[in-house]
């Protein structure tokens, strides 16, 4: 039986499922190029392994089925390794961490996320996401509205006054609050989540390889460099906006 790694080695290409969910994790920039943090890391790894990188773009609903049905070798997305998900696929060590934060219109005059946690408030989050879980748990007094789509759709609901505030991750939110935006991030972090890549349960060789590689770039500083560029600042906007 050929392992996934054998296949990658013999075919000379690694097939990765990504979700184009928006900057900075994975998106299509103004030049029409597919780019973002995970794409960057994957490109780097494929180059170091000496294989070709094949990227396949799926909707969120298609990521895990694509992996399980063998359409791709791994998923490179900002997926939280929950216990139930781990029963289906295997996650790598965390590659980076997301901070779930709340946001609102500046005009509302809120300062910290706790301000949203009151009766009569409504909070928007992406349908069935870990943001929604965090909101349900921490902003429990407010009514939660779960919008299908992503952060863009959530901010739209808040901008239109359909919700008093929203919950998403800090990095995705950054571009919405930049400059003289009408949005502001509220102080405080609701929850921190590790984010990792996922492989099929039987792709052990590939799993170890990925973990090794994450360790490698963490210690040689290349991961921090990428994170600083994509994740912790808006530096990427100059090059890709």
């Amino acid at each position, binding site marked *: 039986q050929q392992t996934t790694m054998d296949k990658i080695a013999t075919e000379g290409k690694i097939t990765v499922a990504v979700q*184009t*969910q*928006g*900057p900075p994790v994975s*998106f*299509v*920039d*103004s030049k*029409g190029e597919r780019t973002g943090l995970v794409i960057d890391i994957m490109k780097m790894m494929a180059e170091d392994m000496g294989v070709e990188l094949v990227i*396949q*773009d*799926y*909707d969120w*609903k*298609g990521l895990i*089925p*694509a992996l*399980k*049905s*063998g*359409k791709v070798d791994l998923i490179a997305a900002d997926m939280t390794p929950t216990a139930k998900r781990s029963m289906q696929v295997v996650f790598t060590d965390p590659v980076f961490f997301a901070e779930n934060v709340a946001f609102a219109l500046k005009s509302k005059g809120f300062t910290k996320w706790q301000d949203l946690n009151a009766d009569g408030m409504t909070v928007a989050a992406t349908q069935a996401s870990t943001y929604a879980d965090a909101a349900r748990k921490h902003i429990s007094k407010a009514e939660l509205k779960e919008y299908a*789509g*992503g952060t*863009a*759709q959530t*901010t*739209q609901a808040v*901008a239109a006054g359909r919700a008093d505030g929203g919950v998403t991750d800090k990095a995705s939110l950054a*571009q*919405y609050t930049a400059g003289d*935006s009408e949005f502001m991030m509220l102080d405080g972090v609701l929850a921190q989540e590790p984010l990792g890549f996922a492989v099929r349960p039987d792709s052990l060789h590939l799993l170890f390889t990925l973990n090794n590689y994450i360790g490698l770039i963490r210690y040689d500083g290349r991961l921090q460099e990428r994170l600083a560029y994509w994740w912790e600042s808006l530096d990427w906007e100059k090059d890709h*906006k």
Partner: protein
Amino acid sequence: MFESIAEKWAITVNLWPILMHGLWLTFAVSMLAIVLGSALGFGLGVVRTLPFGWPRRLIGLYLHVFRGTPFLVQLYIVYFVLPSLDIAFLQFDSFVAAIVALSFYTSSYVTEITAAAVRAVPPGQEEAARAAGMSKSQALYHVVLPQALRLMIPPMAGVYVVIIKSTSLLSVIGIAELTRQGEIAILRLPGNVLFVYCLIAVVYFIYCYPVLRFSQWGERRFGRIDGS
């Protein structure tokens, strides 16, 4: 005011090539599916009007299953579940899977329309053909089906528009059709969600409106069964 118009114009110019690319994919997938699905549905619809008990019931079941479940689920099963059966020819890539799923979905509607149209042709027409010495299949081909086809044009165009619009679900299996292209663009253009969706609507309209006009024309031209 003018600033915002200028801004929207800039966005439009910027997005247009992307949307057109999405439209092309939408067009290609929907056209292929419409052609294949109509052919399949037409065949099944004709069989459904023939006096064979078993095939008729089987087709009825097929029809209800495909019409009664969301297309998303059908798409999902074709692309993700069928490959797990380990049958070589079921290993579709996403484009083929999209065509296969959409064709079956289309055919379920076309089957119903075809059967209804064939039944709407007065039975006397077939009898007259048989009485003139035509075989059952000749009567079907020369007399019944040409008349049924005319009745099918208006409802078919309606179904085609539904099919065209359901291509927007294909992003689940990684096809960057029109809606998906627009949504990808939205990610880069926070604050313009509504405007970009309107642009998408305009592009769909450009594609669908002629189809609907064609149906209207067809209704006037062929809706009545005579040639006048």
